[in-house]
């Protein structure tokens, strides 16, 4: 997904020769996560979600608060307060030293997640930025992306303020200081409108140094609008160069370099052969050795991989590859060997291999220590079930392991679809799950086994619109003891014109032996249509 997006953007920029893209305003989404450090700490410590928490750092001989949780903010704590004062304000609060490394790791993980929207995503002290230029239309516009991210992050329990603006500076300022930022702000794109929009924000929104801010406060310049009204020359005398730079960056007069997070590079192990390698034993040994090396490398990096590529180059220079997927990322050697058990047989060495390699993709950080120790029985068992599915998929082929997913339709044969497990996992969303059937659904009988396609039968009914008293299927006759119905299922309105499907009257019948069948009559006798009978399924 990310790769294709990247390719697409690369292709469009080369095709349009730059000029067109340059004229288009940039779309930068900034996400401000003010409570992320405290939320992280609360979750890691297992405290109740509404615990008042303050994170402090030691500066100028005192511990001063840097971040406060939402409940702590309501209790009257604010960043900059000393911890001693804070303790008197809020007795029940927890105080903890700030851990910038862990917060940064958390933000980086979020930025990696945001790469689903755009290849250019990055972090700063307490927020994320996404350059949506040229990528937002794939998701229905930057408004849609913004709404989607806000929904997903608030579902995850994170409070986020966000803003879309043509420059990074403006997006930052709006997300931090605009009143409507928690529900998402969208700044105007035109420069004149933008400067009007920004003028009501406080000067702190310019990302100034403390000295510059103090000077502005002394001179009574409190709003950004006050600065816009002044001449540049007058400002440059009193204030540092950084101040003017920030003002220019705010309106986009000076470009601001941004460093996006990088995609994790796949882990790669390779072996070159002096003599051409051939023969099943040699190949098996080669795969095992490579996997052992790869697993070792992943263990050292504390990472787990989602899928693997075994590649080889033959002596004539031709290359081929095999792919193996895991539904739960792993770096365990025993599992990898079991997964790739048939790889050696699948390798067509011809005259021998000159080189072979394995790459691990879809890397994520390794699982928690409780899962490693096997103390979490449920996780361990679920992991084993997932490993089984991977092995079955590797053995029989990925399309052989399937799941039933629901489809919106009234026709019995179209109400469900079998998809491969990989698709079902990748697109895992609530609409793929089966809801508990409603009482009305329970009243409409459905068989446990369906024939696809339905088998034509002959039926003897006393009247054209009656249930049959006798059915004949492939030269065998069955007397009908009991019947109930009909249940009429019509074709969808867009199928009516094609005349391929007609209305069906379904009956549930019981034969003399007790077998219960689901049969239907296609074509409505009251409309004078020709009717035909079909057997569609077997009841329990």
């Amino acid at each position, binding site marked *: 997904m990310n790769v294709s997006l990247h390719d697409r953007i690369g292709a469009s920029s080369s095709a349009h020769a730059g000029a067109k893209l340059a004229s288009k305003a940039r779309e930068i989404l900034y996400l401000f996560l003010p409570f992320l450090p405290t939320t992280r700490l609360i979750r890691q410590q297992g405290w109740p979600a509404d615990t008042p928490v303050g994170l402090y750092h030691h500066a100028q001989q005192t511990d001063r608060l840097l971040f406060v949780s939402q409940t702590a903010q309501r209790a009257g704590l604010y960043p900059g307060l000393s911890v001693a004062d804070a303790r008197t304000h809020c007795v029940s609060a927890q105080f903890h030293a700030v851990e910038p490394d862990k917060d940064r790791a958390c933000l980086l993980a979020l930025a990696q997640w945001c790469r689903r929207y755009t290849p250019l995503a990055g972090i700063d002290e307490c927020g994320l930025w996404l350059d949506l230029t040229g990528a937002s239309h794939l998701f229905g516009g930057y408004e849609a992306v913004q709404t989607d991210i806000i929904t997903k992050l608030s579902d995850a329990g994170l409070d986020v303020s966000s803003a879309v603006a043509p420059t990074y500076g403006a997006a930052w300022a709006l997300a931090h200081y605009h009143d409507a930022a928690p529900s998402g702000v969208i700044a105007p794109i035109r420069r004149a409108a933008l400067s009007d929009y920004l003028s009501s924000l406080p000067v702190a929104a310019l990302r100034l140094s403390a000295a510059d801010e103090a000077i502005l406060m002394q001179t009574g310049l409190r709003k950004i609008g006050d600065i816009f009204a002044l001449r540049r020359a007058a400002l440059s005398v009193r204030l540092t160069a950084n101040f003017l730079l920030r003002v220019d960056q705010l309106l986009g007069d000076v470009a601001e370099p941004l460093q996006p997070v990088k995609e994790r590079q796949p882990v790669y192990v390779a072996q070159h052969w002096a003599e051409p390698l051939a023969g099943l034993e040699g190949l098996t040994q080669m795969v095992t050795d490579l996997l052992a090396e790869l697993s070792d490398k992943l263990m050292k990096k504390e990472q787990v991989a989602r899928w693997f590529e075994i590649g080889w180059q033959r002596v004539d220079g031709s290359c081929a590859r095999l792919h193996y997927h895991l539904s739960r990322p792993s770096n365990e050697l025993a599992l990898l060997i079991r997964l790739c058990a048939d790889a050696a047989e699948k390798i067509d060495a011809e005259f021998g291999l000159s080189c072979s390699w394995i790459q691990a993709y879809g890397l994520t950080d390794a699982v928690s220590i409780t899962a490693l120790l096997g103390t979490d029985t449920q996780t361990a068992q679920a992991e084993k*079930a997932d490993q089984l599915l991977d092995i079955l998929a590797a053995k029989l082929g990925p399309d052989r392991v399937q*799941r*039933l997913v*629901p489809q919106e339709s009234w026709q019995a044969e179209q109400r*469900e679809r079998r998809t491969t497990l990989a698709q079902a996992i990748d697109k895992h969303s609530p609409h793929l799950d089966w809801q508990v059937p409603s009482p009305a659904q329970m009243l409409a009988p459905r068989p446990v086994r369906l024939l696809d396609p339905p088998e034509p039968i002959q039926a003897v009914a006393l009247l054209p619109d009656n249930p049959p008293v006798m059915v004949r299927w492939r030269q065998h006759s069955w007397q009908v003891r009991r019947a109930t119905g009909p249940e009429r299922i019509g074709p969808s309105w867009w199928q009516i014109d094609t005349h391929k499907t007609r209305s069906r009257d379904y009956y549930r019948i019981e034969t003399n032996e007790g077998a219960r069948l689901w049969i239907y009559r296609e074509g409505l006798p009251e409309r004078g249509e020709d009717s035909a009978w079909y057997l569609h399924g077997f009841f*329990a």
Partner: protein
Amino acid sequence: MESAITQMSPHHIPQDSLPQEGDKTIYRKDRFAALKHRITAAEQGQTARLSCDIPAFDSALGGGLGFGRVHLVSRTAIPQGKPADSLLPSMINGAVTGFVLALLRKVMMLYPDRPVIWCAPPHAGMTGSLSAEGLRQIGINPAQLIFVHESHPARCMSAFEEALQTDGLAAVVGEYGMLSRQSDLWQRWARRTRRAARMSGTIGMLLGPPAPVCGFETGWHISPYAAPLCAASVADGYDWRPSWQASLHYAKAGRPASETIKWDWVSGRFLPLEKSVDRPVQPPADQLLNSRANWLSQQPAYNIR
């Protein structure tokens, strides 16, 4: 020497071996707890049984169907009089499937978040393939079922065996089809599945045509129960809930039993079927054939909506 022995006595616990805050022993304690849990689970796995709700079966099986065992559920053999190519097998296969699904529902109620593996040929021919709506009416969430569709019977059954070795599954079901015709392969495979099921403690169920039951834990013959036509049964309120003539014809550590049962999807239980002792009436089909006027008077026989 004596002091060394007293130090080694089991009652003496050195202080430093007790779990302490922030120490690795905490993890060790967790590990022990988990191992204990696993051991009890393993012990229970040997004795845990799935009750069939029917006293006749439960007493014949010594408490119910054993976990960690493979149970063979097949349809009743074709009666002598019927031609060999009769379609009866596929007609009553729905009943066999229904019985297996009912058992499956009972297992899934015990393990609500574990998946079930169902190994079957991709295109089941005239027996049809499982339908999600039908599963839901038995009371099973189709999302919990994972299908392994392999047309080669030997490969399909090796997938069954592989799945049976794995713990963390609720149950494994296999449709063996014609594999049982090859008797040597069948026997060997029965032994292997038995060992696989013991290893994991997962319950295995096989369904298909009548097959040699030697080597499996239990053997069942299922046929749909045809209630005799009587006034109550042809009236509007006919009970369409699945009902079967279930016969436990082989139990390794038990005795055979037979009972007519029905399945109640609301409670998820088998119920013994009360045989109606009402006066039998003439089959409506015959009457209807006599005259149309007669048919009109018999109309309530059909529950026409």
